[in-house]
């Protein structure tokens, strides 16, 4: 099979789900302009350009989702979600609960984020943890071409509001799609590399960083497992716990700021639930508490590097050896 990029995989997922279910519609600034094939196939009624107004795009999606449609909205870059927070957080996340279960909100909000294009902090801000901290929302952040496709399809079929983050750095990555597509459910992590001495827990672009770190560590005789969370909410706690109970060491790696990030939650969960089997502290490798800079060397310094992950694992294995 011919390799496809992440962006092409997303288009394929959209096309297949729109063909599968006539209630699926796509809205956003320029979606009808940029996704010509979808427009041609499904028409202007279902592929809609919108005004530049993220709040009303999201609100329209929320209202439509509650009353029979299954909207997908492309909000372009994650920082623009700030204009749509009320609709996503206060309406999509809460009105099912506050209404005693009278409504469901099957909608997907897609946004890009992450280092790689030097676009700076108003286009690159990894805010996925905000939504993990918000009740009623699901959060997906894939790392592989195949997952972008299958998880977007799963998100569209889910009856809940899903934030679907696309790591900019992966947008043009190519990969093969399996001939027989596995139906992935939201909330399932996957082991990317099996290991015994430490678990590297990550998602999105930094899964690749962890895989390269694991290769370096292998040369030193350290066998690191790489766990790709794929979905941040619901979190596959069972997979995280099972791996760390085996390896006894864990490093959580993400590009988002370390403070109050997903890694903090996972570290706390591991401390609470695997304390007896831990051979050292759960370490975190993450971005600084700073806006993402545009300048290339600064942007690179922002994101976790292979060396950061390797040295974290060394710290854990060596302190155990010394003890």
């Amino acid at each position, binding site marked *: 099979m011919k390799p496809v990029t992440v962006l092409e995989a997303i288009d394929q997922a959209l096309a297949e789900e729109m063909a599968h279910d006539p209630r699926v*519609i796509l809205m956003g600034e320029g979606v009808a302009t940029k996704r010509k094939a979808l427009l041609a196939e499904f028409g202007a*009624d279902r592929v809609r350009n*919108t*005004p530049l*107004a993220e*709040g*009303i795009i*999201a*609100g*329209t*999606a*929320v*209202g*439509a*989702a*509650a*009353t*029979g*449609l299954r*909207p997908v909205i492309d909000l372009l870059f994650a920082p623009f979600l700030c204009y749509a927070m*009320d*609709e996503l957080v*206060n*309406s999509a996340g809460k*009105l*099912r*609960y*506050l*209404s*005693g*279960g*009278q*409504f*469901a*909100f*099957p909608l997907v909000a897609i946004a890009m984020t992450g280092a790689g294009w030097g676009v700076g902090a108003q286009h690159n801000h990894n805010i996925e943890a905000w939504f993990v901290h918000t*009740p*009623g929302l*699901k959060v997906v952040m894939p790392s592989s071409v195949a997952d972008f496709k299958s998880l977007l399809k799963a998100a569209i079929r889910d*009856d*809940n509001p899903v934030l679907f983050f696309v790591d900019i750095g992966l947008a043009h990555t190519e990969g093969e799609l399996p001939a027989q597509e596995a139906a992935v459910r939201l909330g399932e992590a996957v082991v990317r590399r099996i290991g015994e001495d430490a678990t590297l827990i990550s998602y999105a672009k930094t899964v690749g960083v962890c895989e390269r770190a694991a290769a370096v560590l292998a040369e030193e005789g350290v066998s690191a497992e790489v766990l790709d969370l794929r979905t941040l909410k619901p979190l596959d706690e069972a997979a995280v716990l099972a791996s760390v109970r085996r390896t006894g060491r864990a490093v959580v790696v993400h590009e988002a700021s370390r403070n109050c990030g997903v890694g903090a939650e996972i570290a706390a969960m591991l401390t609470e639930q695997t304390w007896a089997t831990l051979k050292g502290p759960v370490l975190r490798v993450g971005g600084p508490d700073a806006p993402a800079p545009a300048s290339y060397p600064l942007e690179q310094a922002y994101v976790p590097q292979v060396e950061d992950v390797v040295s974290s694992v060394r710290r854990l294995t060596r302190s155990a050896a010394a003890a």
Partner: protein
Amino acid sequence: MLAEVNVTIRRFGADPLELLNTMMLIRMYEERAALLQRESGAPGTCTAVGQEATAVGVVAALGVDDLILTNHRSAGHLLARGASPSRLLAEALGRRDGYCGGKSGSLHVSARDLGVVLTSTIVGGELALATGVALSQQMLGRTGVVACFFGDGAACEGRFHESLNLAAVWRLPILYVCENNEWQAFVHRRETMLTDSVAAWAQPYGIDSATVDGNDVEAVRAAATEALASIRKNGRPFLLEAQTYRLRGHFEPDDQGYVDQQELASWRLRDPLSKMQARLLDQGIIDQAGLDALSVEIAQCIDAAAVFAIASPYPAVAELHTDIFA
């Protein structure tokens, strides 16, 4: 999960007594809710005392297929649509038999079976959701119009402007109903906007609008009927501004110490209930004895609602974790 209940959308017909009766029900309901707050430690609540004619006039003009989005001051809209005062009061008290199982309280009550969908207490929130509800109506071939109630304060939110613009561009079937009650919580409207007319803000977006005396229930009903006809005929949204006044405070309890007493007194003279009662007495449609009997009947209904609501159990603690995800 909510208990199954029989709900019926109230059909008004053209009966002026039904309009009056419904306004009286709303008035007594809200005064009882305020009393329960004052004397029995019930949670605070927003009333719309003085605005009953707007709620009843608009809802009376709606058809059974039309939908309603509302906000924090929603009791009038819900009761006019046929909500049970017992279940509404139970909701306000956070009880199991409330419309939302007690999880909403008084501030975001929706009742899907009555077509009262997606109530938001975020000022302006319902304006952002209305476009989506109307898009569903349009795309799924449903004929019902979406009536969206909001205040003059909400008209100062960006979402109001975003909503009108999108609704105009996409020709969405929305009846925007601005209840201009002169107050935005504790701030008078004069301090926050240079215009006296929210309706005038609709025109630049390409939306037809009208202004009506929001304290005259028959005038509101007539204006809303015309607005709905215009939406159905032209396939475009419409904004109806009802000029009215919030006679009680923003949120119970509220001593209204910040309110200009002269202004308040002048609006008390325009009380929508007295106005309709005087009119019907004048026209001989009802006599004083009939009015008194009606009052007693509604008071008994509200008494029964209070007994029901107070007797309704609180939700089980396990409900904390239900209805989060579908």
